[in-house]
């Protein structure tokens, strides 16, 4: 049987792991799928959502190992005035975790994020964003092992429109043997 993975989100001070149901950007350190704590459209300049720590955790299967994890988005144009940023350096799981406590831009304020990019820079037929697994042997070869974090954040400028954004598809590719 192939390896199986859960998509997880870490929140809270400790942090606490939960299965990601949907990546909703808001102004809270949570995984809620309600309309609470919506992002604010700034009068001028840019504002940000709370950042979100996402990763894969192996839940089972018969396999030798999984590696070569790559991320990409659907590349579709975002709604006006919005941009989803993704961390582009390795953010170590759990040691690189930094709880979201405000609407701060992640490169300037997250202790584990040193660079980020528009998620649309990464597409299926173009460049993909490689990310690794928890340090050690750099592979996932048993249940319970995890990848490093992909940290996401929504950037909102004054030209954005109120309401729910168009949904976006994010994809992971990996090799299994």
């Amino acid at each position: 049987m192939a390896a199986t993975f859960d998509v997880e989100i870490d929140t809270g001070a400790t942090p606490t792991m939960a299965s990601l149901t949907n990546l909703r950007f808001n102004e809270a350190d949570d995984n809620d799928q309600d309309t609470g704590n919506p992002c604010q459209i700034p009068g001028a300049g840019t504002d940000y959502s709370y950042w979100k720590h996402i990763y894969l955790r192996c839940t089972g299967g018969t396999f030798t190992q999984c590696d070569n994890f790559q991320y990409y988005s659907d590349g579709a144009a975002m709604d006006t005035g919005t941009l989803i940023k993704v961390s582009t350096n390795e953010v170590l799981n759990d040691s690189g975790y930094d709880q979201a406590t405000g609407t701060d831009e992640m490169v300037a304020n997250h202790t584990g994020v040193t660079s980020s990019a528009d998620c649309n820079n990464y597409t299926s037929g173009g460049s993909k964003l490689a990310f690794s697994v928890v340090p050690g042997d750099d592979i996932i070869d048993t249940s319970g092992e995890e990848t490093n974090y992909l940290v996401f954040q929504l950037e909102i400028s004054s030209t954005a429109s109120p309401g729910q954004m168009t949904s976006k598809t994010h994809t992971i590719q990996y090799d299994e043997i």
Partner: protein
Amino acid sequence: MKFYWKAIYDDGEEFPQYNEDGSENLYKDIKRKRLSQFVLLQVNTDVVIYVLHFTKPWQRLICRRRIVRPLIPMTAKEQENLETVWLVGQHWKHKGQRQQKLAFIFQDGHIEERDCFEEESKFYYPCTFVLEDELDGVDS
């Protein structure tokens, strides 16, 4: 279409991914230096899809299942049906340079062959070579 593999050694012995009792053998346990053929077969029908022959002592196996997974919750059952492309090939060293012969086998059964990886592509990008893939100093 879903596939599984079978290794055939130089003395005719077979080492299949799935044993008759349903247990599964691992890629890391394939005896690479004894490989004569690496065969990909279709699950349920056992129809042979692709056969890779090893005719030179310096040729070494590469095999990966390249899996595409949306970043959303999925059941184990749903994960069994993810878009998957098999990478089956061999590599060797020639004058110190790693060379490859690669086949990408898609779920619809079509096969694309290449002689190198390609960074910016959906499926042809390089794999990470692991211990089981390592060339052991033999140069063609």
